[in-house]
């Protein structure tokens, strides 16, 4: 892993863009007192180094009708050496899985799953989740509210 050394200007650029990713290059350049071309070069360098992966739209799944969000904590059967390698591609095949995270700790994998309602969730759970390979244990946490959403890194 090659770390990217950020200078103060890189940090200011990323902090500002993090706070409002919809800003255009000229707007942001103006705000930071840079020329647009100098800002573009900096952003290009951050992209090339892999520190800045992109700007993505945030979708509100509730508005599209997915009202249920469940966090599934899965413990895998570690006696099988291929447990991770087979579980993860299988989980990717379920369209309602929004996030796949792996952990060092009591939990091995966390899946974030959305569904239209509880009945739809039951169907996904019984017909898709329970067929995932090498699960030793599974438990669910239901989201009540998001108190703080990801505003990015403390750069």
């Amino acid at each position, binding site marked *: 892993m090659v770390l990217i050394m*950020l200078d103060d200007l890189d940090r200011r650029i990323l902090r500002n863009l993090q706070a409002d990713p*919809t800003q255009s290059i000229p707007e942001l350049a103006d705000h930071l007192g840079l020329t647009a071309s100098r800002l573009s070069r900096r952003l290009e360098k951050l992209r090339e180094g*892999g520190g800045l992966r992109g700007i993505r739209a*945030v979708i509100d799944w509730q*508005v599209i009708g997915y009202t249920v969000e469940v966090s599934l904590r899965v413990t895998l059967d570690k006696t099988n050496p291929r447990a991770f390698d087979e579980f993860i591609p299988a989980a990717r095949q379920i369209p309602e899985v929004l996030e796949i995270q792996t952990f060092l700790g009591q939990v091995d994998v966390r899946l974030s799953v959305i569904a239209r309602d509880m009945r739809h969730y039951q169907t996904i759970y019984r017909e898709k989740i329970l067929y995932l390979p090498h699960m030793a244990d599974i438990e669910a*946490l239901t989201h009540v509210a998001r*108190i*703080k959403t990801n505003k990015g890194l*403390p750069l």
Partner: protein
Amino acid sequence: MKVGATLDDLDLALLRALSEDASQSAGALGRGLGLSQPATWRRVKRLENAGIITGRRLDLDAEKLGFGVTVFLGVKLATKGRLSLEDFERAVVAIPEVQTVEHVLGLYDYRLRVVARDISDFERVLRRRIMTLPGVGNVDANVLLSEERRPGPLA
């Protein structure tokens, strides 16, 4: 706008494309889908106005930018009641290293995503900031090893 029913295939394709790369111009976005620039722009505006696209997110590689450790903490409050929830929430959202706070139902009360430069930095955050939060009880930790976001059910 009654959604769910009103999203057609082009809307879904736009959502897929924008959740991959929201920095493209309406022209570039439309070309991939066989839509004119003005038609693309109108559709994206409609998705934004309906609250389906809630904003843009900067996708940064935390590890490359020097934040090598991400830990999910499950926090159980020692004292319950409306006041203790409010006190806890107010204090926890103010910690810069805490990226997300979710109120959940299940094994614990809150799920926090904490980012730190390394393990000793994480220990500092845990001791000085998390364990001193009002009402905090049991805390369990899972260190994030890998993470991927999936496009979701947009087919």
